[in-house]
């Protein structure tokens, strides 16, 4: 139901022109208004918190669509930020929100001071759900300036922001913002891979070389099969991460997130290769998904961050405890 509505909304609005505007750093305000109108920023909240009380499966479907359309707006971040804010009992965002953790931001005489690197659409946000140590803050837009511009591989803005804000709210951190963000990204990665596979199937079945469609070649078929395998892994990884996040199990989040990150790279490479030169251009839509995949796989804690967490737990478990640890993920 939600998924159908979202799909139609994105089909209508997230066209190539919208992507071009976003790539130039333009905020797609009119599309954001529609997204907000649908209540999407509150989608992760329980009914008591004013949300829809969606199941994990419904939420997953919605997030995959954000990836499948490579929606160039911080929708996922806003949904995640609101989930954290609602759980912590802080006010929800009045517009697009950011989601970050920055343990080196300091409190100084009642002020929060420090930098947060690479906040998606940092200039346009209403507020930032910021975890510092064990504390969550809802930092309003007036509480930061842009310290340095930055861009994702989609060319969308990732500025570093300088916070200097008189603290007027805080709460114990309900769960790790990086885990929240990493989990949302796994779904977006799965969605983008789904689009990449669809485009690749389309291209290889219609593009004729040597008198037959590319997809009639075994070498091509085997790559398509590998791509389908990466997509299956990314989709399962996303569900695994989401279930783990729901029980606040960081190791499960790490496992899901890592495998999705790996699938993003492997899948994007196959899809691009199967498209030939046209896949390396902005003329073909594939690049919308490959550049998003290359962006998302390194956000909200990189591969090293999550791999260290899971790998050190594996070493701690030891040879005897390793398998029971795996079955608990």
């Amino acid at each position: 139901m939600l998924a159908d509505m979202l799909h139609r909304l994105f089909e209508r609005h997230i066209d190539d022109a919208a992507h071009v505007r976003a790539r130039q750093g333009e905020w797609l305000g009119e599309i954001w208004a529609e997204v907000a109108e649908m209540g999407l920023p509150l989608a992760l909240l329980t009914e008591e918190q004013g949300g829809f009380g969606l199941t994990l499966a419904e939420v997953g479907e919605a997030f995959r669509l954000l990836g499948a359309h490579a929606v160039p707006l911080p929708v996922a971040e806003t949904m995640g930020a609101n989930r954290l804010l609602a759980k912590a009992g802080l006010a929800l965002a009045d517009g697009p929100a950011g989601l970050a953790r920055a343990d080196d931001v300091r409190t100084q005489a009642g002020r929060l001071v420090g930098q947060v690197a690479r906040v998606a659409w940092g200039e346009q946000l209403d507020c930032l759900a910021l975890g510092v140590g064990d504390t969550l803050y809802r930092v309003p837009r007036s509480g930061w300036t842009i310290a340095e511009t930055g861009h994702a591989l989609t060319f969308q803005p990732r500025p570093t922001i300088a916070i200097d804000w008189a603290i007027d709210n805080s709460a114990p951190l309900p769960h790790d913002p990086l885990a929240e963000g990493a989990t949302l990204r796994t779904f977006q990665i799965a969605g983008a891979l789904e689009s990449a596979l669809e485009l690749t199937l389309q291209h290889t079945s219609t593009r004729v070389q040597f008198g037959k469609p590319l997809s009639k070649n075994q070498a091509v078929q085997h790559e398509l099969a590998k791509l389908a395998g990466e997509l299956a892994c990314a989709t399962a990884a996303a569900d695994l991460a989401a279930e783990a996040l729901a029980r606040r199990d960081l190791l499960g989040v790490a496992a899901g997130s890592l495998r999705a990150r790996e699938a993003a790279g492997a899948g994007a490479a196959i899809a691009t290769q199967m498209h030939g030169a046209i896949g390396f251009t902005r003329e073909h839509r594939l690049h919308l998904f490959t550049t998003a995949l290359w962006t998302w796989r390194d956000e909200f804690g990189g591969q090293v961050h999550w791999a260290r967490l899971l790998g050190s737990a594996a070493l701690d478990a030891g040879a005897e405890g390793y398998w029971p640890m795996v079955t608990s993920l």
Partner: protein
Amino acid sequence: MSAIPFPAPPVDSDAVLALRTEFRAFLDRELKDRTPRQRSDNWYGFDRSFSRAMGQAGYLGMTWSKQYGGHERSAYERYVIVEETLAAGAPVGAHWIADRQSGPSIIKYGTEEQKALFLPRIAAGELAFCIGMSEPDSGSDLAATRTRAIRDGDNYRITGTKLWTSFAHEADWVILFCRTGSGGPADRQAGTSQFLVDLKNTPGLTIRPIIDLAGQHHFNEMHFEDAIVPANMLLGTEGQGWEQVMSELAFERSGPERFLSSIELLYQLIAVLQGQTSDAAQITLGRVTARLAVLRRLSRSVTAMLQDKQDASLQATIVKDVGALFEQGLPDIARELFDCEPDPQSASAYASVLGNIVLNAPSWSLRGGTREILRGIIARGLGTR
């Protein structure tokens, strides 16, 4: 949508968790004297007393009807048993094939007489089966099978050669796929049938060992020279062999076990790296564990489909393809983290396990369908063929 859907895995109910705990205790008891090197044999371990213990404790024929000695447990409960068995490196050879595919084929196609004769003994862990599909000129191309059975009164006379038959020299019975009709070139799949053949008591059957590159004997060549098989040992319907053998292959490929063959190496790697805080060790083990966790989830999704009586063959093929890459990739990952000259006969647990795994790993993307065949199946599932 082009994605191949995997449903949510079955839920770990209290009953399932209890079964897992109980079965781990059983394995601890039964396998306490098994060395890491022996555990790394995985599928290639063959131990009738272990299989009998499995049967006596009620862990074989898990999903079958009680009427035939089964236990009427769910597909997911069977999954738990199978994955724990493999994760512990148990010697499964004496019950593996029978429990996974021969028994289910007999349930699906067998006569009442055949069901009564075979199923209770398989569930008791007393009857070992092997697979009679491949031939010298018929590997991936199963329809090229040449072994032929000709009706002769109350018997069939069988002539031909089967190859790569794991444990034919140990097992009791084989389900033999062969040609019964004229089988002209126009329709290679028609006129084929399956037979239950007694490996210990069939005149005209000789079994010759084929030693693999690891020096082990599990492969065999089975040669049938006018071998006599009673007509009541025809499985299913004469002429329907192709459909039946495809169904048997689906049982074979739908298993959850397609990524655990080198798990003992992972345990031993963790043992030698323990105490290390090196970035490389942590990061690599993190990534490996993530792959393993996701493969397990996909496998459990396949089990959910089997539980709902859905056709899971495409999904299972994906798990096998991705899973074989995982299990075959572990030796190289281990080699990047820890220097060791592999030696299957070494007293060092790590060196012996690495040696055994390196020598055996090539077979994992051959058995049950080569990687190339599997990818063709997946591509067809994507609509490209």
